[in-house]
């Protein structure tokens, strides 16, 4: 069962982020990587903000990850939220990839165990139609 108990909002891929979501469907967390200057950018915008190259490939997320910021949401403002409240939203950072952060959830965290700086590890949750979302669990 997924973090939002099967009601998760599915991404609607667009021209710039479709490859990101296609990689997610293959359970690979890949960030936009400039084929010319190697700058990594997230969210993918199709152009390198450092050298303006349109040529990109994809760089795999490092395994080591931790919580950069997090909140507990106490209100259900969207029909997707059927799970018990509160739920968490976390901004995840990768120490080996400065400047790249990913919004996600820490699926097994309690309010006492989720802190800025908490180490986390990637898990994949399938939400239907073959799409998978990158989520995280507390790293031991």
């Amino acid at each position: 069962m997924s973090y939002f108990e099967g009601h998760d909002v599915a991404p609607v891929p667009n021209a710039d982020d479709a490859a990101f979501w296609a990689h997610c469907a293959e359970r690979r967390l890949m960030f936009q990587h400039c084929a010319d200057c190697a700058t990594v950018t997230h969210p993918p915008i199709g152009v390198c903000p450092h050298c303006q190259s349109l040529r990109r490939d994809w760089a795999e997320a490092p395994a080591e990850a931790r919580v950069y910021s997090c909140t507990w949401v106490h209100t259900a403002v969207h029909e997707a939220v059927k799970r018990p409240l509160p739920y968490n939203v976390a901004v995840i950072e990768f120490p080996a990839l400065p400047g790249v952060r990913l919004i996600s959830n820490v699926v097994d965290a309690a309010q006492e165990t989720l802190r800025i700086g908490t180490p986390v590890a990637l898990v994949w949750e399938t939400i239907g139609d073959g799409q998978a979302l990158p989520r995280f669990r507390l790293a031991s």
Partner: protein
Amino acid sequence: MRVAAAHTACIAGIGQTEYTRRGGITDRSEFQLACQAIVAGAQDAGLAPAELDGFATFTEARIDAATLQLALGMPSLRFSSSMWGGRGGGACGALGHAAMAVETGRARHVVVFRTIAQGQSRRYGRFDPQRAQGNMAAPFGLFTAPQMVALVLQRYAHLHGLDPLAMAEVALAFRGHALRNPLAVFHGKPLTLEQYLAARMIAEPLRLYDCCMESDGACAVVVTTRERARDLQARPVEILAAIEHGEAGWGVGPMGGHNMPEARYATGGQRDLGRELFARAGIAPADVDFAQIYDHFTGMVLIALEDFGFCAPGEAGAFVRAGQLRWPDGALPTNTAGGCLSEAYVHGMNHVLEAVRQLRGDSTAQVAGARIGLVTGGSVISPSSAALLAAA
């Protein structure tokens, strides 16, 4: 470019409709509200609506310029612009566009306006599927502005500490000002610290009264040159500077993927805006007699005080808890009509109107001898904007 004094842009008139809670206005359309506010603004200046010849607005305007020109009976539309800064970030930028238009002679009387009827259009406190980079947020339960801003504030709290009583003081001070303002939606509705603390949590650290209201209403200001404004009936207010600014690397910021530069993550993205604004006007924060700070969330008011140079990073909480935002005794009376939290949510146009009232001596919480006021646009959105206004 320093324009000759006679050509300096001034605000010559202000107009508004009543403000109500979301869905409170059902007998007029959002378009009619815009026209009502604009006509009132022209009348305040002593102009006929047909004498207007320009429009300046900002992102998410649902009003068509041609229809507006038709409705107002304007023989010529010489200037029309919309700043890209979204929602609350854009009011002062649109004001700056209007100022440029009149200072360069492209138009004579430009009106800046905002109209919001959330019962008819959309609720800003709900999920917006059109949001840029929404794919990176919505699948993870990040749907609305308070949730997005909560992440910035939690990081700020981690770096500097965030005193819940400082956030409470922002809500209580602005509510206190609204109690003096009969036009405020929360006029006649006092708020106590006990009520504030007992209210439900929205997204930590934001409780209900940390979040601005959803409301209906419209505002307009008429901009012309100082030379023309002198011949009109209202006391003019000079636009010392009204600029927009987007920070390096900010992107969609907290409203998107949260990948703004590390050094600016726990800010409102307005530090460079503030520096450029004061430099352009040739004054310093200490010269400001009052502020109208965009208060979508209490915590972001604390951060704006730091971004605009009134406090060092991490020090706004103590400044606020010392009562410095409160009229009449605070060092920086702020949101003297109640702001987004307690007057109305008109994407910051109501903040511009209150600054004009202060500089005319017409506020219901009048700052004695007010000469210069700061108005800021919404933070965490880029480009944002801000203005410095002065009694002419």
